[in-house]
């Protein structure tokens, strides 16, 4: 009997189970990653104002009467318009984005808000070397906290240097 007619039968179906398993694990991983990084935005306006120097005591006093401001420097915050509170809020240790005292700033802004109930704007003046993260931290603190409303419209003031 001839053996030429025999054919080898091979199961050629692709085993997709491991691929499917990989994909199934990838989906929750992506969902978790998306949830961890939720992008949002802070609204602001920016103004260019004439330079105001802190050495000009009368100009600073006049400014404090009109507007609440936070100056962000390399050594901490300087808040005007917060009444009898110490306007200087130093960093907790060496100044870095996470050592600026946002809690004390929040308390000063609550007091400033109490003294200026009709005011929604807060002027934020930052020194050139201050990291952007600190400026955003000030704006975030200005918008509110658990201790009450603060200032809904932080304004980035440019052109004014302490």
């Amino acid at each position: 009997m001839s053996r030429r007619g025999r054919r080898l039968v091979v199961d050629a179906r692709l085993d997709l189970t491991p691929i499917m398993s990989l994909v199934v694990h990838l989906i929750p991983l992506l969902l978790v990653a998306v949830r961890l990084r939720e992008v949002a935005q802070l609204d602001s306006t920016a103004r260019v104002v004439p330079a105001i120097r802190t050495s000009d005591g009368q100009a600073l006093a006049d400014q404090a009467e009109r507007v609440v401001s936070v100056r962000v420097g390399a050594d901490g915050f300087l808040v005007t318009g917060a009444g009898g509170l110490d306007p200087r809020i130093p960093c907790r240790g060496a100044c870095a984005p996470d050592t600026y005292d946002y809690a004390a700033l929040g308390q000063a802004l609550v007091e400033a808000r109490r003294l200026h109930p009709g005011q929604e704007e807060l002027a934020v003046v930052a020194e050139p070397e201050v990291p952007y993260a600190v400026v955003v931290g000030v704006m975030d603190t200005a918008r509110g906290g658990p201790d009450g409303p603060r200032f809904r419209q932080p304004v980035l003031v440019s052109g004014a240097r302490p």
Partner: protein
Amino acid sequence: MTRRRDRPRRLGRASVLPVTSMVDIFTALLLFLLALVDPSMGAAADLLLPDARAAVDVTPGVRVRLSPAGLWVEDREVGAVEGEGPALRFPAAVIDADGTVAPLREALAGVRAAAGGEATPPLILECDERVPYLVVEQVLVSARAAGFERYHLVVDRAPG
């Protein structure tokens, strides 16, 4: 005596689950999720966004991205930066006498002109948290010179 033909017959086929259609669905789902995650909106590898709690959802606008790697307007690179950390700066050659960054101002003016007579959209600033404020200020002054008056600062929403 039981005859052979009365016994239960066994089928010779293997019991393989047909998963091809499921793989199709999962692949489509995966592509859908990847499309939802916009990598250009704050998820760039070289961009560390600052955290904020009192933030709202991102709205449409003209996107400007500023990182230690450079400056982009709507995914088009318009300038480079020099230095690192607090010493990061735009090259002096691109700064005009009024303090604006010339390529940025021109690019934004072009975007605004392309919008025609419609209202100027807000500027959506995606800025790295390490960038010094002087550079941010130059971007904002340039945007203002190009006619943009509203700014939204993109942040990572902090928990709580």
